């Protein structure tokens, strides 16, 4: 057993918010503190969930906790997020989500009416995604020892025989497709926090993506990898993938879809939309032979109308994401360092 803390204590004596921000400090915490301790082949897949083989039947198992503030925001609330987030993590493993657990940590004094609203929202989201809540837990902590309500969901799903999603399957030339506008969720939360008013209301994109994923997996056996770019945004997800696959990625800035009002908000707040969280977006890494077929299928789906190709996997510069800018130059797209905004999901 390792007795010394592998992240030098001199570096961070306390946990910072950025350790949970989905960027480099989170990555350090996971890779240095957690992974070596729990080291096992299932964990080391470093997927959105673990893929477990029971005598030929493959299960995906995933968990996520939700601490967003405010609890209710344009386009959704913490309950809907808690269902969709775990459903989407399972979908990224190539699994059909079946069952969820639901754990509440509630602060004493929390409004019963809001708890009821959240519960109804969870029910609606679960019905919409076609999953059942089959077990749960409730804890209440002293006033001041929590922040209203935290939710954990875990989920299991089944993976069809022909499906095999893994960063090891990525190949140079694979196209990268996204199912619509980026940065909606993070900007929605940020504007709520800052109490900034914009003419056009910006809404969170939270959505269950399992149906779209299944319909794509049914028509193509050449989906090499999927990832939902949540915390840390598109930039962090793509950087993680390049490092894991030891390949490079080339993005086309003018092809990355982003709503005009979200772009304006990013300009005003000095933020890079590539670093902003999404909750209803998914990246497909597809063999170019199947790209058009997959794109056409996605565009027919409720959450995929604006699907488009935003880049491709390349051999050059393994571990790095490069972007062709709108003015024709090339730049590196890095992971976010700290947290751009805490508690967005």
């Amino acid at each position, binding site marked *: 057993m390792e007795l010394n803390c592998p992240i030098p204590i001199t*570096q*961070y*004596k*306390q*946990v*910072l*918010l*950025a350790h949970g921000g989905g960027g*480099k*400090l989170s990555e*350090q915490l996971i890779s240095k503190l957690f992974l070596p301790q729990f080291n096992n082949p299932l964990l080391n897949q470093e997927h959105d969930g673990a893929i477990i083989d029971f005598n030929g039947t493959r299960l995906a198992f995933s968990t996520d906790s939700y601490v967003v503030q405010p609890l209710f925001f344009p386009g959704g609330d913490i309950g809907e997020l808690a269902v969709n987030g775990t459903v989407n993590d399972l979908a990224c493993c190539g699994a059909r989500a079946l069952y969820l657990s639901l754990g509440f940590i509630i602060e004493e004094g929390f409004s019963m009416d809001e708890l009821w609203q959240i519960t109804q929202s969870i029910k609606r989201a679960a019905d919409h995604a076609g999953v059942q809540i089959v077990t749960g837990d409730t804890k209440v902590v002293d006033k001041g020892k929590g922040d209203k309500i935290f939710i954990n969901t875990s989920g299991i799903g089944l993976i069809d025989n022909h499906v095999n999603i893994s960063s090891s399957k990525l190949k140079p030339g694979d196209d990268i497709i996204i199912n619509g506008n980026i940065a909606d969720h993070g900007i929605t939360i940020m504007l709520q926090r*800052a109490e*900034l008013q914009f003419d056009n209301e910006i809404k969170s994109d939270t959505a269950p993506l399992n149906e779209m994923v299944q319909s794509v997996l049914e028509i193509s056996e050449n989906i090499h990898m999927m990832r939902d770019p949540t915390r840390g945004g598109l930039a962090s997800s793509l950087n993680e993938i390049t490092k894991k696959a030891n390949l490079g990625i080339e993005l086309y800035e003018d092809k990355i879809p982003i709503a*005009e009002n979200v*772009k*304006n908000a990013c*300009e005003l707040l*000095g933020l890079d939309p590539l670093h902003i969280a999404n909750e209803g977006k998914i990246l497909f890494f597809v063999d170019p032979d199947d790209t058009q077929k997959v794109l056409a299928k996605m565009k027919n789906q409720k959450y995929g109308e604006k699907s488009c190709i935003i880049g491709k996997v390349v051999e050059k*510069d393994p571990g*790095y994401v*490069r972007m062709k*800018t*709108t*003015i*024709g*130059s*090339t*730049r*590196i797209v*890095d992971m976010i*360092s*700290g947290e751009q905004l805490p508690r967005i999901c």
Partner: protein
Amino acid sequence: MKYIDEYRDPKLVKLLALKIKQVTKENWTIMEICGGQTHSIMKYSLEEFLPENIQLVHGPGCPVCVTPLEIIDKAVNISLQSDVILTSFGDMLRVPGSGLDLLSAKALGADVRMVYSPLDAVSIAASNPNKKVVFFAVGFETTAPANALAVSVAKKQNLNNFYILSSHVLVPPAIEAIMSAPEVRIHAFLAAGHVCTVMGYNEYIPLTEKYKIPIVVTGFEPVDILQGILAAVEQLESGSYELENQYSRNVKKEGNIKAQELLKEVFDVVDRKWRGIGLIPKSGLNLNDKYSTFDAEKHFDVKNIQVEEPLECISGSVLQGLKKPFECSAFGTKCTPEKPLGAPMVSTEGACAAYFHYKKTELMQN
């Protein structure tokens, strides 16, 4: 996006790049003063569009970067005192002091809050009469008027629990300091458009004459910056040294008179220490006697906090344009945005962080 896309037009960028290439005959070194410009140059890899004989160096115009270590230590010290709420803009919270940064102080229990405007800090003070609310006020002439306004609003509201910890700095004295340095090798400046929106550009005209150097007031988008460079090179090639205003859509010669009056009402011009550069005479703003009760340095006992800069960090040379970030032995190894040795690695507008984020593959390959 109207009023922005026009300044990111790929055709215009190519046309300007071509013109710059045609005009440039000699080797020229041009310094962009403002960190916002540095950020744009890196974000859009604008150096790809310039001929090899034009070199850009990145000036001291990132307020986070030039804030001296000891004032960060003062902020951390104040934040850890009882009944204090310390507020600042986001980037400032991550700047390392000699021990802690403000986010680490927060993790230790200090009440540290990020705000979007100093007036938010005034509201926090008004609604928390039992707390002392401190706004850590950094920035150039651009942010100073808003901070001056916050102090004058607090005075009007008779708040006795609002303070600012001021580390305001001024651009023209920094240009003087750079041009007076013995190793100076700057041929022209791109002045910071936003600073001139407030201050106008009258005060830069004597500098062009004194140092025989072109200064072009420049905006922040790719087209702005390339136009600024073109104007500077045209002057250099023809041997002239004048003040030009590329950013005329926002900048008037006399600037924003109301904002300037507010600055005069609240602040005095004082000598100021700059991180990595040292003391520059008459280069900062401090609350004047009329508003001194709002001065956090006077209220909290932090006068004795004095700190030396780490020897390994070459931020001084970087900020004066004498060295590029990657010429530092700690760049990207001991010094990264997660664990910065010096302030230019912290802020997204800092030269070192900009190089680290946007150019590291090129650097690794070279």
